């Protein structure tokens, strides 16, 4: 078990197959509509006129697989009125369902949409970093399922040394807000944060 686990996503190699989403839903037996991991399809571009008046295209598409980033300054924890949303000793953000009132306030606040309301249970639910698997020395279900090994996890400090600080990349929010334990290797076509050149094309899935 890592002291402070974090996720790394390699956007350059992710094919957007969503196997991670399915593995997460399967492992945690999540009801319909509850998605602890979501893969956003970020696309944009169009026709561009060149200097010689001919046309070319600059279309792009990439995928961003996001669950809870177990942030250093999680907004869900600070806004939760009951303290049900909390960080454990490993920095993993968990929901104490014996305290949660199901007010949805954490879901309103989280820019990664990590907290998900479980209507059947009447409480919030979210990625627990497969803490049970980690204690057994196994990787989280989403990481284990990734066919391209684009999604990995590890000690936060090690990943930071390897990949640098969290990247401010569209469509992700400014990492300064919550300081996510998420490290990203952007692809060739990655757009800067708050870029208006692309759009999430599968909002119904994420």
């Amino acid at each position: 078990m890592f002291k402070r686990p974090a996720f790394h996503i390699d956007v350059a190699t992710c094919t957007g197959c969503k196997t991670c989403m399915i593995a997460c839903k399967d492992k945690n037996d999540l009801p319909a509509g509850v998605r602890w991991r979501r893969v956003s399809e970020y696309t944009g571009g169009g026709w561009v006129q060149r200097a010689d008046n001919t046309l070319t295209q600059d279309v792009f598409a990439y995928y961003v697989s996001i669950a809870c980033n177990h942030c250093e300054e999680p907004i869900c924890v600070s806004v939760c009125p009951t303290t049900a949303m909390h960080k454990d000793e490993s920095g993993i953000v968990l929901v104490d369902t014996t305290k949660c009132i199901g007010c949805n306030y954490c879901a309103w606040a989280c820019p990664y949409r990590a907290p998900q309301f479980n209507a059947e249970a009447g409480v919030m639910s979210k990625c627990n970093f497969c803490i049970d698997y980690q204690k057994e020395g196994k990787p989280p279900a989403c990481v284990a399922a990734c066919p391209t090994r684009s999604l990995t996890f590890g000690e936060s400090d090690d990943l930071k040394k390897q990949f640098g600080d969290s990247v401010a990349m569209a469509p992700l929010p400014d990492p300064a807000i919550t300081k996510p334990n998420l490290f990203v290797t952007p692809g060739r076509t990655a757009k800067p944060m708050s870029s208006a050149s692309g759009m999430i094309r599968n909002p119904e899935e994420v």
Partner: protein
Amino acid sequence: MSSTEWPLVVFTILVQMSVGLLIVSELACVVGGTAAHSLLKYRESCSLALGLVGLAFSFAHLGTPAHSPFAIFNLGHSWLSREIFCTSAFLGCLVALTIARRMPAFAAFAPLVAVVAGVAGVASVFAMSKVYMLVTVPAWNSPATVLNFAGAALLLGALAAGLLACLRWSAMSGEAARVPVVRTMGVLLIFAALGLVAKFIEIPLSLFAGLPTNARGVSATTIVLTNGLGAYVLQVVLLIVGTALFVHVANAATRGNRSLLPVLGACALLIALAGEVLGRLAFFDMHVLIGL
């Protein structure tokens, strides 16, 4: 228009109206003297009733209401905890005030309890505003949210106090009916006007705050001005018509014309309330997160 947040629409509006009714009517009593005390005799009871109904609606928003006692566990960080604490304190003060004004043994405490209730009410409306001023929701994270809620409290509170005064006055007969109403109605008119001004500043300010488009290509302002433009305009019209009708009521009252006052006062309140409901539905529709 949002349909999922109805419990919060009702909760926020009724608690704000409750706070506004108490503060405006207590100040009217300070200015209006015994006449105002007589006209607004049941102000704390009505304020309490509004607050309790609002609070009851808030439970309908919760997935697990049985865990609600835990909701004040995070007073150090969560504005939602603070809002629940302040609103509960406000309602507790109203219970104490109602008792103090009905039982002579506790009457001496009434002025102090009224001041504490007013402070708790202001704290409740402020905390309620801060609940929605999330850094991740640009349309809400603006001074417009404070103006929105404070404006609703003043406008609806003044109109509710006006209705109470009209009802009480129309029920009076003989010598009692000659009670002077000018000062009381004047105070209520001033607060209604302040509330309307706050709404007029808030509306363009919130539309400006909601301009940023998120990664889904959605902007809060676009949502209300495309899907709900008619309702948004109607909100403004209803607020103006409700206030104008109240001005007419106050004017008729100061001329000593009591006929139809309760009906007109009720219409003024209901029209402004309808406008406020439309505005609050639009407010909840403007929840557009940054990021994913």
